[in-house]
C-alpha cells in the first residue's frame, strides 16, 4: 500500500477531521493523521492551524513519526513562534535520548528552527552533543553550530562554540572532521577577514590525513578549505600538492575540480624550472580530459573552468585537441563551450584537424551552432596566420552551399580576415559580390559594403554595387547606413570622376533626410572635408588601419586570477567575480593567486640588491636635488653617492639633455608647464624575483607579478602645487609593456601646450620608451588622458626611492 493515497482528500472540514485524528488515542491513527498533514503540506496546503495538535504527537517512540513531526515543526515554527516554544522541552529531552539517531535528529531539527526564543535553549544541548560519544551525533552538532551562527552569530561567539568546532578538526572520525571544516568555512565566509580557520601546518596536516578517509563530499569540503590557504614557501606548497594529486583520479567530478583548484593555486608558488612543476603540469591534463565524460551539466562546469585554465596555463592542454571535438548528441551549451576551447587551443600544429572539424560543424542542423562554427573558422584564420589561406578556401566552399545564414556569417568573417591580412585574398571578392542579393542581415550587409569600399579600386563595378544599396537607404539599419556612407566616400576618393553624383546623393541622404545624429554628423564631416581639403580627406578616410587583435575574448588578467581561485564555483561558470552576483559581498576582499616566493630562483646581480629587496616599494623617480634650475642646465646628473653605478642609458635622458641645452627649453616648457613626475604612485606590487630586468616582469618568466593589476589613478600633482596643472596617474602593464597612464587637467586660466616629460635617474631605471604624446593644446578645465610607454633601461640611481613631486616654472 503506497502513501499516495494521502494526497487525495479534498473534503471540507478536512482540518477539523485531521485535528480529531491527531488527538486520537490510537497510535496508528495518529501516525496516519500526521502523514496526511505532511502530504497536505507537500502539495502546498496550509495546515498551520494544526500546530498544537501535531506538537502533541511529538512524544513518541516511533522514529518515523517523530521525523514527520519534526519536519512539520521546521516548516511552521517560524510562523508560529509562540507555539514553537511548546516543542522545546521535547527537543531538550531528545538530545539526551539513549538512541543516538534521536539525539542527532533533535540537534539537527533544533538548528533549523529559526526562532530567536528557541535558540537560547539550544545552547546547552548543542554543547553536550558536540562532545557526544557517537560520531553521528557529533557530526550533526558540528553542522548545527553553523546553523546557529546563521541565526545569531554573536551567541555562537559568546558561547565559545567556535573553539569547540576548531577542536573537532582533530576528531578521530573523518566525517566529523569534514563537517567541522565545512561549518568553519561557511562561518568564515560571513567574516571574511578574520582568520577563523587558523590554518597552520599542523591543522593542514590533520586535514590532509582526514582527506584520505573521508567520503567524497568531505574531501570536497577539505579541498575547498585548503584552497584558501597560502603556503609559506615553495617547499610547503610542493608537499601539499603531492598529497592532493591522488584526488585527481577520483570518480566524483567535484572532487577532481576542487583538487585542480588547489593545485592551480599552489603551483603559482613553485619555481618554474623545478622538475616537479613540469610533472604537475603533465598530471593535470588527464583528469581534466576525464571530466568531459561526465554528465552534461558537469561537462559544462568543467568546460567553463577549462576555458579559464587554458587562458592561464595553455601548456597543460595544448596537445589535447581531439577531446574537445563536438559530439553529435552533446547539448547545445556543451557544444558552444567546446567550440570556444577548440579555438583557444588552435595552433599551427593542429589547425588542419580543427578546420576539417569546423567545416563539418558548419553543415549541422542547429543554426546557432553553425554560425558559431563559421565564426570559429574566421577566428582561426586570424589567430594562426599560416592557416588563413585554408580558412579562406573553406569559407568559400561554405558560401557555395548557398545556405543563407552560412553565407552571411561567412562574409562577416571574411571581412575580418581582409582586415587582418590586407591585400592578400582579394581574389575572393568576385565570389562575394555574386552573393550580394542574399544578404539581408545588417552585419553581413555592412561587412560586404566595407569590403567593396576598401577594395573599390579593384572592383570594376563598385559604384554599381554601392548604388544598389543606396536605394533602400532609409530602411537600412544604422550600422549599414554608416558603413555605406564611408564606403562611398572611399570610392569617391579613389575614383573621383565616375562617382560625383553617387557621393552627392549619399551625402544628402545622410545629412538632410536622416534622423540619426551620428549619421548626420559623419555626413557633414565628410562633406566639409571633401569640399575644403580633399588631400586631408584622403588622409583621414583612406588612412592606414591598425591591425586587429589576434586573441578575442581574453579575460582580463586580474579577473582571471580571481576566477582561478574560485574554480568549480558559480563564479567560474559565469566568468564573473562573486561580488558581481552575490548580494552583500561587495566589501569582500578579492582572492588573489599567491605570489612567487622567489626563494632560490631570483637572479640577483650585485647592482640590483636594493631592487630585489623591496617588493612593494612604489617606483618613484628621484627629483633633482636642491636647485631645480641648476639641475635643468646640468642634466648630466651628478654621479650617485654609492659606488658601482650601472652604465647610464644613452636613450631618454640624454635626449632630454640635448633638447634642454640646445635651446630646446621651449620644447620642454613652452607656454605651459612640464612636470617631472616624481610620482607617489599607488602601491604597485612588483615581484620579488631579482634582476632589474625582471623587476617588471615583461617576459612572464620566473617572477610572477602579483597580478597584472592596474591601480586606480591617484593624484600625483595637485593643481595648487602644479601651478594649475593637475596630474593624476597610475602605472599599468599592458601587453608586456609598462605604461605610465596620466590624466592631465588644466585648472588654470590659460591654455597649456607643449608638454614634455623628464625622468631623472631613479632606482628602477625607468625611462620613457617613446616621446610623450600630448597632441592637442589643453584648454582651461579640460582633461586629457595620456599613456606613456616605459622601459627599464634607463640609468639607475642607487638609493632608496623618494617620493616628491615638483614643478618647474616657466623660464
Amino acid at each position: 500500500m503506497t502513501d499516495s493515497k494521502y494526497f487525495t482528500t479534498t473534503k471540507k472540514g478536512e482540518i477539523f477531521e485531521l485535528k480529531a485524528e491527531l488527538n486520537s488515542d490510537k497510535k496508528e491513527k495518529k501516525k496516519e493523521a500526521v502523514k496526511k498533514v505532511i502530504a497536505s503540506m507537500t502539495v502546498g496546503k496550509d495546515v498551520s492551524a494544526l500546530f498544537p495538535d501535531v506538537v502533541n504527537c511529538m512524544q513518541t517512540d516511533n522514529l518515523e513519526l517523530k521525523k514527520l513531526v519534526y519536519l512539520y515543526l521546521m516548516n511552521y515554527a517560524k510562523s508560529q513562534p509562540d507555539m514553537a516554544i511548546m516543542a522545546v522541552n521535547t527537543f531538550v529531552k531528545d538530545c539526551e535520548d539513549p538512541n543516538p539517531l534521536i539525539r542527532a535528529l533533535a540537534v539537527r531539527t533544533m538548528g533549523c528552527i529559526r526562532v530567536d526564543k528557541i535558540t537560547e535553549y539550544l545552547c546547552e544541548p548543542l554543547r553536550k552533543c558536540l562532545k557526544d560519544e557517537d560520531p553521528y551525533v557529533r557530526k550533526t552538532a558540528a553542522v548545527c553550530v553553523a546553523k546557529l551562527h546563521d541565526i545569531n552569530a554573536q551567541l555562537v561567539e559568546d558561547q565559545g562554540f567556535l573553539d569547540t568546532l576548531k577542536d573537532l578538526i582533530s576528531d578521530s572520525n573523518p566525517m566529523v572532521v569534514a563537517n567541522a571544516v565545512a561549518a568553519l568555512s561557511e562561518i568564515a565566509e560571513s567574516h571574511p577577514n578574520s582568520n577563523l580557520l587558523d590554518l597552520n601546518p599542523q591543522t593542514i596536516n590533520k586535514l590532509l590525513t582526514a582527506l584520505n578517509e573521508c567520503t567524497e563530499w568531505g574531501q570536497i569540503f577539505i579541498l575547498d578549505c585548503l584552497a584558501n590557504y597560502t603556503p609559506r614557501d615553495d617547499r610547503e606548497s610542493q608537499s601539499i600538492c603531492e598529497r592532493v594529486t591522488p584526488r585527481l583520479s577520483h570518480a566524483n567530478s567535484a572532487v577532481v575540480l576542487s583538487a585542480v583548484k588547489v593545485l592551480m593555486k599552489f603551483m603559482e608558488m613553485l619555481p618554474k624550472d623545478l622538475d616537479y612543476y613540469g610533472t604537475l603540469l603533465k598530471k593535470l591534463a588527464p583528469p581534466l580530459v576525464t571530466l568531459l565524460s561526465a554528465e552534461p551539466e558537469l561537462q559544462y562546469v568543467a568546460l567553463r573552468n577549462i576555458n579559464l585554465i587554458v587562458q592561464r596555463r595553455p601548456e597543460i592542454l595544448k596537445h589535447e585537441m581531439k577531446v574537445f571535438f563536438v559530439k553529435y548528441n552533446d547539448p547545445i551549451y556543451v557544444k558552444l563551450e567546446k567550440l570556444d576551447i577548440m579555438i583557444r587551443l588552435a595552433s599551427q600544429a593542429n589547425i588542419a584537424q580543427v578546420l576539417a572539424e569546423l567545416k563539418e560543424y558548419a553543415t549541422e542542423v542547429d543554426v546557432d551552432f553553425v554560425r558559431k562554427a563559421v565564426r570559429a573558422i574566421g577566428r582561426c584564420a586570424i589567430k594562426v596566420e599560416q592557416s588563413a589561406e585554408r580558412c579562406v578556401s573553406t569559407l568559400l566552399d561554405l558560401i557555395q552551399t548557398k545556405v543563407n545564414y552560412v553565407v552571411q556569417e561567412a562574409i562577416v568573417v571574411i571581412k575580418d580576415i581582409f582586415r587582418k591580412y590586407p591585400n592578400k585574398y582579394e581574389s575572393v571578392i568576385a565570389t562575394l559580390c555574386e552573393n550580394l542579393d542574399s544578404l539581408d542581415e545588417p552585419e553581413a550587409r555592412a561587412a560586404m559594403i566595407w569590403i567593396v569600399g576598401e577594395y573599390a579600386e579593384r572592383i570594376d563595378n563598385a559604384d554599381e554595387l554601392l548604388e544598389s544599396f543606396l536605394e533602400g537607404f532609409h530602411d537600412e539599419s544604422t550600422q549599414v547606413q554608416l558603413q555605406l556612407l564611408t564606403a562611398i566616400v572611399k570610392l569617391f576618393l579613389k575614383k573621383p570622376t565616375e562617382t560625383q553624383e553617387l557621393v552627392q546623393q549619399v551625402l544628402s541622404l545622410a545629412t538632410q533626410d536622416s534622423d540619426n545624429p551620428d549619421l548626420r554628423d559623419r555626413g557633414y564631416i565628410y562633406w566639409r572635408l571633401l569640399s575644403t581639403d580633399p588631400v586631408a580627406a584622403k588622409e583621414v578616410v583612406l588612412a592606414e588601419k591598425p591591425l586587429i587583435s589576434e586573441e578575442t575574448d581574453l579575460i582580463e588578467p586580474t579577473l582571471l586570477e580571481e576566477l582561478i581561485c574560485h574554480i568549480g564555483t558559480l563564479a567560474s561558470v559565469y566568468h564573473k567575480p562573486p561580488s558581481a552576483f552575490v548580494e552583500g559581498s561587495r566589501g569582500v576582499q578579492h582572492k588573489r593567486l599567491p605570489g612567487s616566493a622567489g626563494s632560490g630562483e631570483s637572479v640577483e646581480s650585485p647592482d640590483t640588491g636594493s631592487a630585489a629587496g623591496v617588493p612593494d616599494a612604489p617606483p618613484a623617480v628621484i627629483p633633482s636635488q636642491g636647485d631645480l634650475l641648476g639641475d635643468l642646465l646640468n642634466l648630466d646628473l651628478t654621479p650617485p653617492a654609492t659606488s658601482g653605478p650601472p652604465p647610464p642609458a644613452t636613450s631618454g635622458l640624454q635626449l632630454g639633455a640635448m633638447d634642454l641645452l640646445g635651446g630646446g627649453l621651449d620644447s620642454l616648457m613652452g607656454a605651459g608647464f612640464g612636470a617631472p613626475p616624481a610620482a607617489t604612485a599607488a602601491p604597485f606590487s612588483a615581484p620579488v624575483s631579482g634582476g632589474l630586468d625582471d623587476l617588471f616582469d615583461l617576459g612572464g618568466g620566473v617572477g610572477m607579478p602579483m597580478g597584472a593589476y592596474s591601480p586606480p589613478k591617484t593624484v600625483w600633482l595637485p593643481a595648487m602645487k602644479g601651478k594649475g596643472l593637475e596630474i593624476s596617474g597610475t602605472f599599468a602593464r599592458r601587453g608586456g609593456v609598462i605604461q605610465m597612464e596620466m590624466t592631465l587637467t588644466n585648472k588654470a586660466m590659460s591654455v597649456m601646450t607643449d608638454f614634455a616629460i623628464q625622468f631623472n635617474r631613479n632606482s628602477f631605471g625607468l625611462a620613457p620608451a617613446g616621446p610623450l604624446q600630448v597632441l592637442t593644446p589643453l584648454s582651461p578645465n579640460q582633461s586629457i588622458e595620456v599613456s606613456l610607454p616605459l622601459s627599464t633601461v634607463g640609468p639607475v640611481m642607487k638609493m632608496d626611492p623618494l617620493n616628491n613631486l615638483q614643478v618647474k616654472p616657466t623660464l
Partner: protein
Amino acid sequence: MSASAIFVLDLKGKVLICRNYKGDVDMAEIDHFMPLLMQHEEEGLLSPVMSHGNVHFMWIKHSNLYLVATTNKNSNASLVYSFLYKIVEVFTEYFKELEEESIQDNFVVVYELLDELMDFGFPQTTESKILQE
C-alpha cells in the same frame, strides 16, 4: 557553500516535494524556474545554470522530473550537480524507478532521505548501504 534548497518538480514545474536547508532563499522563488526555462529554450540558450535576480538555479532532468537546487551564494557548482545526480542514484536504488509517481508513493521515505542526504546545504551520507541504517 552549496545548495540553499532542493526541489523536485514535474514537467510542468509544479513542486512535488522540496526541502529548505538554509532558509536564505525564499521558497517561492521556484515559481520563476519554469518560465525562465521556457524562455531560455525558445532563445536556444539552454543552460544548466540560470539566474533570476540574485537567486541561481542549478538543475538536472531525470525522466519526467526536474531536480533543482537554489542558492544565492557563490556555490560550488560541480558539487551541486554531482549531488543532484547522487540523489537520483539513491532514489532509484530505493524505488527502483524514479519518476513522478515514485515521489508521491513514497513521500515519507523521500523526506527522510532528504534529511539524511544533506544538512544545511552540505551533502552528508550518500552511500545507500549506510543510509539503510
